[in-house]
């Protein structure tokens, strides 16, 4: 019988100190399949921990994200779920199937490696910590990030040795075979016998949509009205996802179902390449226009995908870069100023402007001041019955952006009344069905005055 929750048991087992008072309350005792899963996890752990050589082999590690939490400050509360989701994803990618990982607290993980030796295990942990910190903080000081390796038992508690990620990575570099760090990760200990299939928890069934359906993401171009200059000079490249029933969603919503960073990076890269090729062709045909290209946080946050994306950016000829702007999508609210500045600076050589897509209800942008961003894009609600409220919110949104010295681009404007309200509030760029529908190919820059808007037929 599990009288304590598994989390509590594990915490007691692994705790270096008594749980602090701020620890999150224990969840209700799980039942049904959850309980079976936890019991299976406990059996696997007991099987692993029963090995006398396990601790001395340095296969039990603890990762905590105190440094990340400190750096994020008040943004931690907003980002906690994303940090945990990202940590789960990174850990599960880097550990082996027979290894076990579990979260024992707020931003604290235990990883028990079934087969790796201490050096290889610490390398994996250092890599996990490095990736996660890089994802949320950019280039953190790796000397500040610690990995704890269990080295023995004292009074029923596990003793840990702490080392910084910088030290671990440096040591690995010095001791690794000519084959490099990968070679150091070869298991030294005898692998545990594989768990019988019957003892494994049943894999929860997942929705398996056809890849063909997922691949129905295309790119369209929406005219962006520079209302100050009375010209449509920019075409906003927007992802469009089409469903088998003929319906479609556009913009950030088109990417909402995609959680795999690799897939997002591929979509972003393909979009950039397609767009630049179109822009180049139009440019050679004497068309002059700007295009705004979307790129997701996941693509820029991870070093490998960012480098791949930047490699494509570097291949964009100089004469086209002045006609490119980037729109950063899916950035978490509260991304630190330093991280934002770093990413904006990395992209700046390849574009004229950079905009950040934010939630319309977000009303504080002080942390974005001085990051180098040109402005913010936001999608206004399409509910016409709530237009009065939307107009009020537009005023505060634009005022807040202006306080941070950021321009605003309002997307999703479907009525003249909203276009007027957006301009009256001080918005400089407006897009939406009322301005122009999304097209397969962007058009030439064109003069577009208020009169053109009013004289064009529109439903009242």
């Amino acid at each position, binding site marked *: 019988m599990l009288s304590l929750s598994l989390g509590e048991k594990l915490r007691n087992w692994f705790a270096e100190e008594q749980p602090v008072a701020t620890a999150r309350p224990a969840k209700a005792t799980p039942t049904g399949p959850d309980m079976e899963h936890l019991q299976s996890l406990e059996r696997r752990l007991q099987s692993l921990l029963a090995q006398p050589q396990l601790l001395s082999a340095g296969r039990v590690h603890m990762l905590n994200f105190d440094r990340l939490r400190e750096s994020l400050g008040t943004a931690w509360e907003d980002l906690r779920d994303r940090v945990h989701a990202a940590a789960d994803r990174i850990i599960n990618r880097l550990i082996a199937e027979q290894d076990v990982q579990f979260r024992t607290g707020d931003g604290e993980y235990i990883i028990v490696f079934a087969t790796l030796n201490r050096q290889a295990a610490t390398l994996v942990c250092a890599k996990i910590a490095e990736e996660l910190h890089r994802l949320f903080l950019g280039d953190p000081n790796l000397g500040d990030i610690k990995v704890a390796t269990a080295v023995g038992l004292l009074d029923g508690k596990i003793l840990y040795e702490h080392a910084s990620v910088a030290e671990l990575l440096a040591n690995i570099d010095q001791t690794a075979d000519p084959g490099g760090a990968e070679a150091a990760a070869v298991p030294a200990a005898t692998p545990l016998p594989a768990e019988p299939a019957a003892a494994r928890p049943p894999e929860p069934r997942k929705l398996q949509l056809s890849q063909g359906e997922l691949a129905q993401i295309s790119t369209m171009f929406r005219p962006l009205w520079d209302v100050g200059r009375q010209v449509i000079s920019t075409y906003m490249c927007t992802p469009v996802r089409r469903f088998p029933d003929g319906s479609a969603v556009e913009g950030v919503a088109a990417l909402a179902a995609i959680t795999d960073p690799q897939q997002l990076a591929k979509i972003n890269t393909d979009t950039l390449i397609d767009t630049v090729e179109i822009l180049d062709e139009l440019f050679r045909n004497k068309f002059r226009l700007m295009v705004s290209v979307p790129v997701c946080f996941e693509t820029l946050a991870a070093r490998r995908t960012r480098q791949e994306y930047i490699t494509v950016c570097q291949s964009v000829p100089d004469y086209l870069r002045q006609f490119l702007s980037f729109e950063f999508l899916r950035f978490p609210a509260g991304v630190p100023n330093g991280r934002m500045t770093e990413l904006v600076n990395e992209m700046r050589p390849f574009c004229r402007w950079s905009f950040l897509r934010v939630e319309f209800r977000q009303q504080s942008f002080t942390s974005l001041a001085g990051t180098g961003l040109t402005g913010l894009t936001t999608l206004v609600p399409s509910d*016409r019955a709530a*237009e*009065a409220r*939307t*107009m009020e919110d537009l*005023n505060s949104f*634009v005022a807040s952006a202006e306080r941070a010295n950021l321009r605003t681009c309002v997307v999703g404007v479907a*009525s*003249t*009344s909203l276009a*007027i*309200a957006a*301009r*009256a*509030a*001080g918005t400089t760029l407006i897009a939406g069905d009322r301005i122009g529908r999304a097209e397969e190919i962007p058009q030439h820059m064109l003069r577009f005055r*208020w*009169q053109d808007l*009013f004289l064009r037929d*529109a439903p*009242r």
Partner: protein
Amino acid sequence: MPTVLVIDDEDMVRLVLRQFLERQDMEVIEAQDGDEGLRLCRAHRIDLVICDLIMPRADGIGTIMHIRRIAPKMKIIAISGGGRSHAMELLKVAEEMGADHALGKPFTRDQLTAAVAACLPNPTLAPRLR
């Protein structure tokens, strides 16, 4: 007695305008948005329309254009502002699209008096709806 139609989504603005205009011996009809304003314009003999520009659903400039189509000789004063940074730019557009005068909020009593007097030099003469 001339009849003035005030179209504004803000209750307080309509109330202040009503009090001012009634003191000038004018009859006041109120509408909360452009669609209601157009209905009232068709249903009543109106001498002057005072129309806000920034309103939900049916905006002021579109409303002015519609009124101008159904009553080409109607006198129209566009009003807008309320602290919004680019409202003045829209008042210019309203004049181009058919408003006779434009007043930025907040306007003074004298400014409103001058605009109404310019629109209704002979208050007894009310243009007929087409």
